[in-house]
């Protein structure tokens, strides 16, 4: 049954993994508010980051379409409001009511992939120059929001899309279009539009497939590196652009990338250690 893309506009927030929510609650509950940096605690969780950005970009705070990083949002909202946002984050039920209809998504791997892509995007943004590192980080973190939304709200249909993709040997994005009438990438964009995210973040998503923006190309390259370093999203969803074309569009060479590799790997390890604490 075809769904309406517009229905995603009424979604308030996306669920996160129970381990992540628990880890954040433990961290915020066991230390005094002066002892922790709330952004550090939630920075690798795509759902929590999306919720915080949604609130910060809401008309209430007067900065609609202007807040593109967790650091900016934290400055605007303060730790108390962010803690309340985390408390509102629903739990993703990975083992859904009807087990056999659940989509075959390895959510732990997906979370790791998002966190590492964020880390690498932030690092690449800093090393390439001319980009805001924390905005690159955010774009990397939330690039799979569409898949998370489909998993949470239409799990059976997403499972069907996986099945279609496998049977017809087409990409998951194409299978999603067949089943839903739109892709997870479009869902991602719909959510970001409804939640008043800045245009730069919206463009970064389209960049993943078409490389229309520099930010999009950075995220695509980070995603590719994450997969190369054994942290893929396990969705086989995109017709990934080649590394060469990404390097070309970012005006960097393979040598540059080799030179930056140790530093980028350090960023990735940091994300892994933070996320594994939670999982």
């Amino acid at each position, binding site marked *: 049954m075809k769904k309406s893309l517009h229905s995603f506009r009424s979604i308030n927030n996306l669920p996160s993994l129970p381990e992540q929510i628990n880890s954040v609650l433990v961290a915020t509950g066991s230390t005094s508010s002066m002892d922790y940096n709330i952004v550090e605690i939630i920075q690798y969780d795509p759902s929590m980051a999306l919720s915080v950005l949604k609130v910060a970009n809401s008309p*209430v705070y007067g900065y609609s379409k202007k807040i593109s990083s967790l650091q900016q949002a934290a400055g605007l909202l303060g730790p108390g409001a962010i803690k309340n946002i985390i408390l509102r984050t629903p739990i993703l039920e990975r083992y859904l009511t009807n087990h056999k209809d659940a989509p075959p998504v390895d959510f732990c791997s997906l979370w790791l992939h998002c966190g590492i892509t964020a880390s690498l995007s932030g690092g690449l943004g800093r090393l390439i120059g001319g980009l805001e590192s924390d905005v690159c980080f955010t774009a990397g973190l939330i690039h799979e929001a569409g898949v998370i939304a489909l998993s949470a709200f239409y799990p059976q249909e997403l499972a069907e899309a996986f099945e279609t993709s496998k049977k017809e040997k087409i990409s998951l994005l194409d299978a999603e279009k067949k089943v839903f009438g739109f892709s997870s990438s479009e869902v991602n964009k719909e959510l970001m539009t409804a939640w008043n995210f800045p245009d730069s973040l919206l463009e970064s998503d389209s960049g993943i497939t078409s490389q229309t923006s520099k930010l999009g190309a950075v995220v695509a390259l980070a995603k590719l590196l994450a997969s190369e370093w054994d942290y893929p999203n396990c969705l086989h969803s995109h017709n990934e652009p080649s590394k060469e074309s990404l390097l070309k569009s970012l005006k960097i060479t393979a040598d540059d990338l080799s030179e930056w590799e140790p530093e980028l790997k350090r960023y990735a390890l940091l994300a892994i250690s933070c996320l594994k604490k939670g999982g």
Partner: protein
Amino acid sequence: MSVPEHLKWQESETVRNLLKKQNNLLGDSLEALDHLIYLQKSINLLSSEEISRVMAEKLPYILSVKYFSFFLFDKDRKKLRLMSHNHPDLQPDLSIYQNDSPIMKESMASGRYIFEQDFASSRYFRGRRNKLFNSDFFVSIPLMIENEIIGVLNLNDNDKGFYNVGDLDFALNVSEFVALSISNALLFETVERLSVTDGLTGLDNHQHMQSLLKNEVIRCQRYSSSLSIIMMDIDHFKNVNDTYGHQKGDDILLDFASTMKKFCRSNDVAARYGGEEFILVLPETKVKGAFYIAERIREEMESQIFNHKGKDFNVTVSCGIAEFDSNLTKNPADLIKVADQALYKAKHEGRNRTVIGSP
């Protein structure tokens, strides 16, 4: 006896759904609380204009509506003046009699909110549908401070198409914050206005005039711009008081103040200097222009006929003018001194005339 598997499963499913619902409700409450705290911080201001701006920016989102309007109530005139709104077509200075809006009138009279899920079929409907609204509901909340109505908040239209009890409950809480902030700001503005205004005539008082004149003199010294002042005094005012009584004297002062205001331009300052003495500060005005204004005021006063117990009488004024001269005028006191001397001369030469002073 062991519980069958399918019952266990059913119960765990029920518990899970219940927890989900509880979580959602708690989430909504937390969000509402955050909004309330932030709104309270945002509208904790002393300027009603600023509060209106913040309301227009934040209120629709916080109250889950597309449109809102807030009217201030003028209880003496029984009028409602639009203070804040986000309707695209409403005139900014809209003012209506309370009788023109039955729903607002009743919410104020009863001191209770009115919530009509289908406004068009309610008894408040006057047959004119607002084309902006896609939803049928209309909420009108009176804003009160200690049983005193200060205004009405109207809420219309949203994406859901209806307004539920939870939304309304939250809107009532928000309206109390808004009422308190607006009331504070209005009180502050009144006190601020009174502190710079002459109680009888409504013109600027002496102290405020001195401060404005000081700024004007500084501006003239910096930019070499022109500035003139007119000192004015009602002739034989003591006789007026003695003959017709102080009440009549006050009426004449009021009348003279309104004549001064009539000839004031937007940047001019009209003030009561003290007693029956008045001053007009005229920025960017040379002595010739000041003389013209002084003469028009003098002639206007001369032509007015006052009446006391059937007896007509006239009142005249004398005027002294001073123009700022960067070489000879060092401060406001120098300028006032020149104008005062010119006024003295006008009195000395027979009153009801204008004299230009020289430093």
